[in-house]
């Protein structure tokens, strides 16, 4: 944080009104998505009951007019899933935004330098071990190894890519690609030999929030929230890095150190997200672009707005996945988001939209 004072104001973002609209709209979107996801489901609990149950559990108010099973469904099944969806969506969107700025690569997503491959290998190894996977507080071996695998992979990639003159972005990308490929080969080999565990393995790889529970929220959410909070606080340095590493250094940023800090924080959020949800695609790649098309590239606004829209989008997508009979949530994120993204993209290249 010592460099903060040395950095001149890099707030080249949009007006206060537009900022308030983006953030306020995002918050409203998350709220509406959460209310929809808590009140809707396959078992047909009334929306009023669902809200009353949440209020009752939070405040103890109101008479209990619902069966115990309704309370279990709303409080133990739907709500942890919604909260997990929020933090995972927020974490992935935030990490995606950071990697896109850091690597100056529009195709960058949270998984680009390897955490997904590492987490997948960890999870698949855990799934194939002949031991019980339930574990401590619902945090099974699967989640633990996925988290460790994801984080360890990024640390290894950073170490491999680091040369005498620092860590060139291209080297980081290529090292990440190579190590991902290596780990994916391991995953493929394990899949090939997974036998009757195959369905469990594929189910994990496709990504799902179906296993969400309060204990998992309690372990993963703080990790993700801390990571993205620290990332939000570094918006000035991200703005400076957008100018290029040379100019950023001239602005007083310790570029190499900053790259490592940002990478580790984004990897921390990504690994924790993947550990509880599997590899959910699309959110981390497209939400930052989508938000950038609307609010512009200033990270003071881009990061929090991406975070909110990522959270809302994943909660909505998971609701869709649930109502559609448990299809992989990544399919739904793409189905919901891709057409909208294409529309925005067309609008901006044809000059109708406001492109900053």
């Amino acid at each position, binding site marked *: 944080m010592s460099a903060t004072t040395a950095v001149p104001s890099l707030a080249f973002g949009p007006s206060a009104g537009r900022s308030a609209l983006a953030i306020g709209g995002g918050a409203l979107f998350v709220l509406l998505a959460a209310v929809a996801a808590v009140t809707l489901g396959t078992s047909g609990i009334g929306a009023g009951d669902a809200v009353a149950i949440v209020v009752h559990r939070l405040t103890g108010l109101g008479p209990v007019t619902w069966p115990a099973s309704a309370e279990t469904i709303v409080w133990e099944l739907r709500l942890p899933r919604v909260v997990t969806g929020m933090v995972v969506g927020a974490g992935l969107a935030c990490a995606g935004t950071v990697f896109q700025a850091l690597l100056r690569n529009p195709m960058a997503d949270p998984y680009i330098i390897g955490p997904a491959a590492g987490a997948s290998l960890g999870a698949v190894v855990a799934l194939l071990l002949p031991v019980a996977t339930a574990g401590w507080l619902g945090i099974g071996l699967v989640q633990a190894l996925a988290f460790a695998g994801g984080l360890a992979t990024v640390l290894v990639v950073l170490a491999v890519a680091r040369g005498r003159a620092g860590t060139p972005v291209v080297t980081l990308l290529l090292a990440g690609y190579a190590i991902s490929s290596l780990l994916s080969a391991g995953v493929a080999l394990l899949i090939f030999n997974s036998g009757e565990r195959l369905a469990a393995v594929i189910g994990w790889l496709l990504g799902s929030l179906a296993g969400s*529970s309060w204990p998992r929220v309690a372990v993963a959410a703080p990790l993700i929230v801390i990571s993205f909070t620290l990332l939000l606080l570094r918006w000035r340095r991200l703005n400076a890095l957008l100018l290029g590493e040379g100019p950023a250094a001239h602005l007083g940023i310790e570029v190499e150190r900053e790259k490592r800090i940002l990478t580790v924080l984004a990897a921390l959020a990504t690994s924790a997200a993947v550990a509880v949800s599997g590899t959910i695609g699309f959110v981390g790649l497209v939400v930052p672009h989508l938000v950038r098309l609307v609010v512009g590239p200033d990270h003071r606004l881009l990061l929090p707005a991406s975070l909110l829209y990522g959270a809302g989008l994943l909660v909505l997508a998971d609701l869709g996945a649930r109502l559609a009979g448990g299809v992989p949530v990544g399919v739904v994120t793409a189905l919901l988001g891709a057409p909208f993204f294409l529309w925005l993209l067309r609008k901006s290249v044809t000059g109708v939209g406001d492109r900053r």
Partner: protein
Amino acid sequence: MAFHRPAFLRFITLLLLFGLSACATTPGAASPSASTADSAQPASAAASGEPPAFPVTVTDDAGREVVVSAEPQRIVSLAPSNTEIVCALDACDRLVGVTDFDDYPPEVADVDDVVIAATVDVELVVAAEPDLVLAAGNELTPTAVIDQLDGLGLPVLVLYPETLDEVYADIQLLGSALDRGAQADSLVAGMEERVADVVAAVDGAERPLTLYEVFHAEGTTYTAGEGSFLASLLELAGAEPLTGDAQGVLDAETLVAADPQLILLGTASYDPSLADAETALATVSARPGWGELDAVRDGAVVPYLDDIVTTRPGPRIVDGLEALARAIHPDRFDPDR
């Protein structure tokens, strides 16, 4: 994600193996003498002066000890085989949730589905307010789902019989859990008797090397796995099963080298184009290498339409065994039955 491709193919295969075994109602898929005499018995075993049966502690097929505190009134079954056992024990009216694959007995069509497209909807399971959940093993009910239901405090019994004896044991296990021990005993006795009849009927007959085709795709045949339930049924039915690896995978080279004498197309249960013997023979002879097989040249390729009862480990597994024995040794059975 290039590594998804071969895996996905096998995943689809798994879905086909387990999924299709329920959604098809093949024309002509006869279920010979389905309901056993035992299931017609009155459900009053617990009536006369016996000690109270509950709470009862049972050990399920996953080795978990489960306490059933009172006679279950609301049962959720997560596998068609479990449903069939419950109904054969006269507890069909206790079912409050089944799978969308369930097709037997017919009255389960009226029970709400809580497993849709091979996916357990945990919310629907909880909403059904069950006091007993019957899951399947071997990841047919995902371990994650079993853990989740456990965590919500629902009593979950995992049933996964891999031999006839284990089917009997599971029927008796449910007999204890549902306080229907007497029905379970007589149901099992009836099954054992019919199995003994089959074994006696094929006794001394030549045992043809038999390929049971579970699924076929791209030159790979899925058949009875080595040491599998299906392999043991084929043996009892008087065949020498041509087995694949532990998962039942048999590549074309191994198949051609083994050269089976008889091919039973379980796939015909789901693929109407294979149900006709002549068409089926033409189809399989066109597969690379198959034209030279003894079974194909001799025309010993039999469309087998009873795959559902043959691969569903419930009370009707004996129907499956009888159907297998008739297909393998038609000369040993009365053709009119």
